[in-house]
Structures are given as structure tokens and as C-alpha cells.
């Protein structure tokens, strides 16, 4: 009766005075058995050569029953009574929203003609993809396949509108676990890396891993079903993991075990420590110091430290010379100031800064070094992303999942600011960088104070597209994210949605049937909004070509934290399997832990041929043997001094 995908009519446009056909919306009926469903793309042809493409947004079925009472009467009040010998005539009435008119002008009501299911080419035309899929310089990034009535048509995004400069950014929403948000971003990144044409330039991705093992195995192949492989084939993408992935993670509090779930011995070698010093932190002190309680006075003092003290020779009034490189150096300076002021008697002011301000700033800064211990070192060594030498089609994963919010904010702000500065100067190493932030609602909530992080995100969302700084962000509830940040995303993707969220004002434009479809969307299906698409379209995408976090943890269980010496041995062994445990332990026995850390960091950064030789050389000859208490914190706040702001 109804043959699928053969191009035969599946329905007819109907128009009545109450339900007229307009230029943007119309209604059509189909048989009760029909391949048409919500999200199906259809075409209507007028004999005069006009074609209208549309997407089905609503559907209704009803019979000629005027009131339910008539059924009751006919059954004589007994629902179990004799079954009626004739089924009432039933109509399937669909509402479709117009995607495109060909020709585009003049815009007229949809002709009252036959309705057909769209073919591959129709889908291309309907979504205006022809302009970038078939053009001389194609810029199509496959995002998934559209499916209806046995037909599979690839749907692509336009790189010009995904990575700039026309528009940029991608925002993905949906409930936890079912919306496949993280998976979708992983897949789209793979698609961009494989399909972004050379003439569109180079691209790298910087991903913040904020949740457990989520992005810890991007370089490992994941398990795919046959259906996934078919989707990859249909989209022209190879299902292989990313071949250039660089991992960065801060240390744990012990300063030697890395704070990441990617700590299996087979993988640990590829994780670089993320270690910053005082300078890196001080430049972003705005993030760390809660805006609410940092006033102009504290700001001025921080500027003074940054400009006049850090990494300079600085003489205080009491005859000491300071060269502040680390938090430990800074603490020494503060002690000198407080001691000096105390001895001098009643003065409350040092170089125009009130002692209360100085004390407040000190406590804040040292608090940072405590809370971000593992990221922030005391000794001035730094291990950082290779800003300036980012590689084309490489992924840089910053594993901040184990850090507290303050540390995450710091990493995020500094990394993004650095990317931005380098892009502005054109010396990042790549022309586009995609910054992937999961759980955007944590960084840019719709309510709450105007934090530095939020302002920065807003700035990227507004100006990033000109710079090649592209934000891919995910969150469960769009309504909980700053409106302008999500509003500036050119491409918006929805996975399975929460009904309550769909009831919020941001979703009013969607038809009730579309909302219900969104609330029941199966895993692997997404609704995509993109500047070229007049209406959102539903697509299916394959599982990402990488190992998922939970499965990765099973395959590569994280190693337990080791005692200091063991940890050093393991990290060196990850660089070179021939490393002898006894020899390393011997050489570090009795050495200051900080010195060992520095040597380890240098070795990891350099990745020399001769791992042991380099490590030994960095360690230097064993001279001082001062006993130092292990794990002693430098940042010991002065309890004796009252600081109302101490946290």
C-alpha cells in the first residue's frame, strides 16, 4: 500500500478556513499507516515549479466521532460490549513548518498539493546544505544522519558557522546520562578534525575534563556496534580515536602523584604535570580573590606585588633583599614586613598600604597555594601547555576533575586567557582552538555574582568567532546558564531533555509534539539548530570513536597512590621501561623532596633519550642534607593576627 522511500506521495496538503496553509506552516493528511512522523522532512511540489520543503512538527489523529458520549451510547454503556463491526474513518493530520521555498521569492502560502518524503538531495536542499556541501570549497562538518521512512541522509554543519567567522560556538543540552552530550561533542570533534578542509586552516581542541574519567581515554579506541559503523560510513568519517592527545593534570597534595584517573602505568607516561608558579597565579588574581571582598586597596597592593616585587630584586626597609619567585619567598617577605612594622612600633602603614590590607592579601594568596597545592608550586618550577606551539588536529586535555572549584576556575581562566592572547597575536600555533567546557552551568550560572570566569566566557561567546576561539559547552539545563552565553552559540544541540526544563520560557518556540519527542529522545539522537536550518532537525550520531570514561576505567584501572620514592620511579619508568628502581631510589635517598620534584618535572618535560642520566643530572650533586619535615605546608596562616576575611 505505502512504499517507503520511492518518492510516491505520502500525503496531501489540506487547508480550511480554520486551518489554512500559510507560507511558514501548513497541514497535510496521510493514511493511518504512514512513515511520516515528528521530525520527518517532506516536500510539496506545485505544478508551476515551486517546491516547498518542511519539517513535521505536530501530528493529530481523530475520527468522525463528535462526542465520546456517542461511543457510550453505541456500546450501551458497556465497554466490554460487542465490538463495533466498522471502525470509524480516521484521519492523520500533520502540521509542518516550512524549511525552504524554492524559488525563495515570492514567499507564498504552501500549495495544496501532494506531499512526499524528502530524499537525500531534498534534505540537502531543505536544510540549505547544498551551499556548503556541494560548493567549490566545501566546508561541511557531518553531525549525524537524518532518518525517515527507510531513508538515511547525512546532515552537516557549516564550518564557517561552527568555527567562525560567520558565527561560532556549540552548546549542547540534556539530562545526565541519556542526552549523550559528552559523547556528541567527542564525535563532533572527531568529525571536525577529519573533515575540516585544509583551506579552512588549522584547529586544535583544549578540553577541560571536569567529571571523573570522562575525557581520560580520547586516544584509546572504543567499542562500536555495527549500527555505529554504518553511521560512520554514511557520514564519511573513520571511526578511529584521536591520534594526537596531550594530557595535563596537576599533582596531588603530595606533589608527586598526578591528580588524574588516567594513572594506569600504561598511560601515565603521556600525562604531563600541570604546575604553575606564583607569577602564573598572580596575573590571574582576580579569579582567586572573590570580587565581593577585594576592594580597590587590595587591588592596588596586588598590583604593587605583581609589578614591583615578583621576580625582581626588592629591598625592604629593614635591610633585607628579596627575590620573590615562589609562595615561600612571598611568605618570607610578608614576615619581614609584619616583623618590621611590629618593631617599628605603632605604624599601621607600609608603603601606603594598610597592614590590614596586606594581611588580607597575604591570607588570600597563601590560601590559594594551600587549596591549589599540586597545581601551584612553591619553588618556581612551571609545567604548562605549549602555548605558541599548539599542533594542528591535536587535543589538549586538562584534567581538573580532581581539583576544587577555585583551582578549576584558575586553570580555566588562565588557559583561556592565554589562548586568547596568543590568538590575538596570531602565534598560538593553530588558527582555531575549540575550548570544550562540560558543566557550563558551574562556570557561568544564570544567577549569582558576575565572576571573572563568567565575564570571560561572555567575552569569548561574543568576540571569539573573530579570533578563532570557539566555545563548545555542555550543560544539563540551558535555563541555568547565563543567557547571553548560550544565546551566542550559533549551533545548539539538544539530547534527551527534562520535561520541567522544556516548560521554561526558553522553549516556547517548540511545538508540543517536538517537546515530547525531545523528552523521550533515545540515546544517540539529537535535535540540532544551526544558522542554515530554518527549523531544528533531528539526527542520529554514532558512539564516539574513543573509549568512554567508565569503560576506560575498567580497561585501565587507575594505579593506587605510591609513596614518594615509588611514585618517582613509576613516573620515570613510564618514560622509559628500562629505568632501574633500585638505582633511582638510591639516588634520591635523603634528598630534598622539592629538588627531586624539580628534577622529575624537568625530565618529564624534556622527555630525553637517556631518562635516568637526565634525571640524575637535573638532581645535581647531593650537597645539603638539611632535614626537612615532609609534607610541611608553607602556607601557615598567622593565627595570631585577626583577619576578618580569613577563610
Amino acid at each position: 500500500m505505502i512504499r517507503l522511500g520511492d518518492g510516491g506521495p505520502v500525503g496531501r496538503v489540506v487547508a480550511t478556513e480554520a486551518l489554512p496553509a500559510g507560507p511558514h506552516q501548513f497541514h497535510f493528511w496521510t493514511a493511518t499507516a504512514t512513515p511520516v512522523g515528528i521530525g520527518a522532512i517532506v516536500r510539496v511540489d506545485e505544478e508551476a515549479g515551486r517546491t516547498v520543503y518542511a519539517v513535521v512538527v505536530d501530528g493529530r489523529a481523530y475520527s468522525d466521532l463528535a462526542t465520546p458520549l456517542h461511543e457510550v451510547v453505541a456500546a450501551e454503556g458497556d465497554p466490554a460490549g460487542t465490538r463495533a463491526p466498522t471502525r470509524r474513518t480516521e484521519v492523520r493530520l500533520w502540521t509542518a513548518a516550512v524549511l525552504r521555498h524554492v524559488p525563495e521569492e515570492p514567499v507564498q502560502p504552501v500549495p495544496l498539493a501532494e506531499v512526499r518524503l524528502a530524499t537525500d538531495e531534498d534534505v540537502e536542499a531543505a536544510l540549505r546544505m547544498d551551499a556548503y556541501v556541494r560548493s567549490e570549497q566545501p566546508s561541511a562538518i557531518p553531525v549525524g544522519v537524518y532518518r525517515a521512512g527507510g531513508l538515511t541522509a547525512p546532515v552537516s554543519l557549516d564550518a564557517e558557522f561552527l568555527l567562525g567567522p560567520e558565527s561560532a560556538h556549540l552548546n549542547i543540552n540534556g539530562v545526565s546520562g541519556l542526552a549523550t552530550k559528552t559523547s556528541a561533542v567527542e564525535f563532533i570533534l572527531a568529525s571536525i578534525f577529519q573533515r575540516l578542509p585544509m583551506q579552512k586552516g588549522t584547529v586544535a581542541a583544549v578540553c577541560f575534563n571536569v567529571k571523573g574519567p570522562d575525557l581520560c581515554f580520547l586516544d584509546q579506541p572504543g567499542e562500536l556496534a555495527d549500527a555505529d559503523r554504518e553511521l560512520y560510513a554514511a557520514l564519511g568519517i573513520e571511526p578511529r580515536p584521536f591520534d594526537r592527545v596531550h594530557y595535563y593534570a596537576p599533582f596531588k597534595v603530595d606533589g608527586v602523584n598526578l591528580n588524574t584517573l588516567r594513572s594506569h602505568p600504561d598511560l601515565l607516561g603521556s600525562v604531563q604535570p600541570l604546575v604553575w608558579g606564583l607569577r602564573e597565579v598572580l596575573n590571574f588574581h582576580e579569579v582567586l580573590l572573590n570580587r565581593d571582598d577585594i576592594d580597590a586597596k587590595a587591588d592596588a597592593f596586588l598590583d604593587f606585588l605583581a609589578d614591583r616585587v615578583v621576580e625582581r630584586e626588592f629591598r625592604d626597609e629593614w635591610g633585607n633583599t628579596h627575590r620573590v619567585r615562589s609562595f615561600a619567598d612571598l611568605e618570607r617577605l610578608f614576615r619581614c614586613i609584619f616583623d618590621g612594622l611590629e618593631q617599628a612600633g605603632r605604624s599601621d602603614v607600609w608603603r601606603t598600604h594598610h597592614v590590614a590590607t596586606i594581611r588580607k592579601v597575604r591570607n588570600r594568596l597563601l590560601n590559594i597555594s594551600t587549596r591549589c597545592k599540586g597545581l601551584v608550586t612553591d619553588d618556581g618550577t612551571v609545567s604548562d601547555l605549549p602555548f605558541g606551539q599548539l599542533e594542528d588536529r591535536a587535543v589538549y586535555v586538562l584534567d581538573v576533575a580532581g581539583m576544587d572549584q577555585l583551582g578549576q576556575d584558575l586553570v580555566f581562566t588562565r588557559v583561556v586567557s592565554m589562548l586568547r592572547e596568543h590568538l590575538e597575536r596570531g602565534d598560538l600555533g593553530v588558527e582555531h582552538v575549540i575550548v570544550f567546557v562540560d558543566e557550563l552551568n558551574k562556570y557561568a550560572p544564570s544567577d549569582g555574582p558576575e565572576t571573572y570566569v563568567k565575564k570571560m566566557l561572555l567575552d569569548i561567546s561574543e568576540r571569539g568567532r573573530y579570533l578563532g576561539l570557539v566555545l563548545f559547552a555542555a550543560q544539563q539545563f540551558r535555563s541555568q546558564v547565563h543567557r547571553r552565553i548560550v544565546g551566542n552559540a550559533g549551533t545548539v544541540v539538544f539530547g534527551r531533555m527534562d520535561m520541567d526544563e522544556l516548560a521554561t520560557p526558553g522553549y516556547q518556540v517548540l511545538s508540543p509534539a517536538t517537546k515530547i519527542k525531545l523528552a523521550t529522545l533515545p540515546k544517540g539522537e539529537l535535535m540540532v539548530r544551526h544558522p542554515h536550518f530554518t527549523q531544528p532537525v533531528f539526527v542520529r550520531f554514532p558512539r564516539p570513536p574513543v573509549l568512554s570514561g567508565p569503560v576506560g576505567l575498567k580497561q585501565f584501572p587507575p594505579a593506587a597512590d605510591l609513596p614518594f620514592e615509588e611514585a618517582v620511579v613509576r613516573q620515570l619508568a613510564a618514560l622509559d621501561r628500562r629505568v632501574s628502581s633500585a638505582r633511582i631510589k638510591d639516588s634520591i635517598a635523603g634528598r630534598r623532596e622539592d629538588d627531586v620534584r624539580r628534577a622529575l618535572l624537568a625530565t618529564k618535560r624534556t622527555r630525553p633519550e637517556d631518562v635516568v642520566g637526565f634525571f640524575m643530572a637535573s638532581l645535581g650533586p647531593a650537597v645539603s642534607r638539611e632535614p626537612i619535615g615532609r609534607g610541611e605546608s608553607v602556607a601557615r596562616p598567622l593565627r595570631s593576627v585577626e583577619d576578618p576575611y580569613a577563610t
Partner: protein
Amino acid sequence: MLRVGGTVSAGVPLSHAAPSVTSPFGSASYVEGDRIRALEVGDAAVPPTELAFLDGIQRYAVEGRIGLVPVVRGYVAAAVLRRVRETLQAVESRSEEFVLAPFERLTSQQRAELEGVGLPLYDCPAAERSHPILDVRLAAKEVETKREVLELEIARRYLEAEPAGWLVVDGALTALSEVLEMSPKVLGLIKSHETQFLDGRDLEVALTLPAAHRTSVFARAVGEHGRVYTWYLRLWPWEEHDLLYGLVRVERAPTDATVDEATAVSRWLLAERAPLAARDGRWDRLIYPIQQVETYLRAQAGGWW
């Protein structure tokens, strides 16, 4: 009312006398027993699977006058819908549009002009003397005859294709008596009771049948020599309405089988009360499949509705 053994009616207020009835009385003879009795038919039963429904429609309009002579445009259509697994499907359908005028009142030139309009032109009777209403009524009668001819043709075609199936026709079998010889399974379902064939106590039994009862089968004359067997059947209780509420009359070929099967046929006709043909005011007597044939024909007629 009840005290004197009467029945309460709906009591709907009206203003005009009922329209005049053209043939109020007909003749009948007993077939099942020697008087008319009310027989309980029992519960509704599942209708036969091979079952189809026939109906026809007619429309006419006075398009103009040549002198006093009316020129009438007519439209007739008929269709058979067969029920397959609870769904009705059109299996036969025909329609015709034409122009009618009494040729005897036209000059040959006028007739030639009318022939030129592009629709078939047919003759129709006219009143003895010119009469603006009577002339049109005669033309309308002719339209009705054309519908009956079409219905007959459709019925014949259907029965040739499906000789074993039942065919339920809307209305009396008067014009279809020819097909009764083709199939014993043709039923006429009459919902208007202008012509009364019974009299006296028999009539009272028939018109006061309780719900789910039928009368005994009797015969009525068709044309000069023919006859059909027929019985009344009450589909819905008439109490609180009026005598004719829910009352249908069934016609079938004059054979013994008709008498033997009258109860069985009545039972499955009771099943046809559902679904209710409630979009039509006559739903107490109109079964849904027949209404669907009419809906189908009207949809086909397009501009005529």
C-alpha cells in the same frame, strides 16, 4: 398517558404540519404466521464478514428557463463500500451529471443549443399545462429515476464480481427487484415509513415494537406483479421519543430463506448500531456504513455540496 396504557413521547414542539405523503398506503400479505407478531430477536450478533453497502445520492438545480420551461442540471452518484477487517473500502462507484428539459416544449433549435453546453441532455416529462413548480418537480422525479438506474447498475456490477457476499442497500428494493434474482443476499434497509403496508392491530404491533424485536415477515407488492418479503425491526427503544424512533424495515427476496433467517439477520443488524452515525440526525435508523457511503459520495461530488 401511562395510566391509560399509553407511552410517553419526546414532546418536541413543531410549527407546521408534516409534509404531505405521496403514497401513504400499500398492500401486504402474511408470510410468517397469520398475523403480525412482535418477536424478540435476542442479542446483537457478529455480522457476516462478506458484507458491502450501497447508497446513491442525487442533486439538481434549476439552471434557467427557456420561456417558462425549466432547464434543470442534475447530478446522481452511487457507490458500494465493502467492509474488510472493520474498514470500509470503495469497490464500485459511478456518477453522472446531465441536463434535463422537456423536449416537447422546446424547438429543435433550442434543443440544439442545450446540447451544446457539454453535458448530456435528457428529456423529461412536463405537466399538462405549464406550471412553474410542477414542471420542476417532474424534472426532479426524473433525476431520482436516474439515480435508481445508477444504483441498479452499480448493484449489478458488484454482484457480478462478488456473487456470494451480502449487500445492504439504503432504502427500498423497489427499483432493484431485478438484482434480487442475482443474489438472495441483497437487503434493503428502509428508514422512512411514509408508506404503511399494515393496518389495524398489525400496524400497532409493528409501530410499537419494543427494542431488539422484529415483526413476523410479511410480503408487500412491488410494481404490478412482483413482491418482496419484509419485516420491521426496532434498533433503539422508542419510549420517550415517538413511534418511528429506531424503527427500520428490512426487505429481502421472497424466499423461504428470508423467513428462516429473519431473526439471524435482525441480530447482526443490531450490531450495526455501533458505531453511532451520530453526525446525521437520523442516527437512530441510519447505520454507520451507509452513512459512510453517503459521506464518500458527497466528498466525490465536490461542487454539488
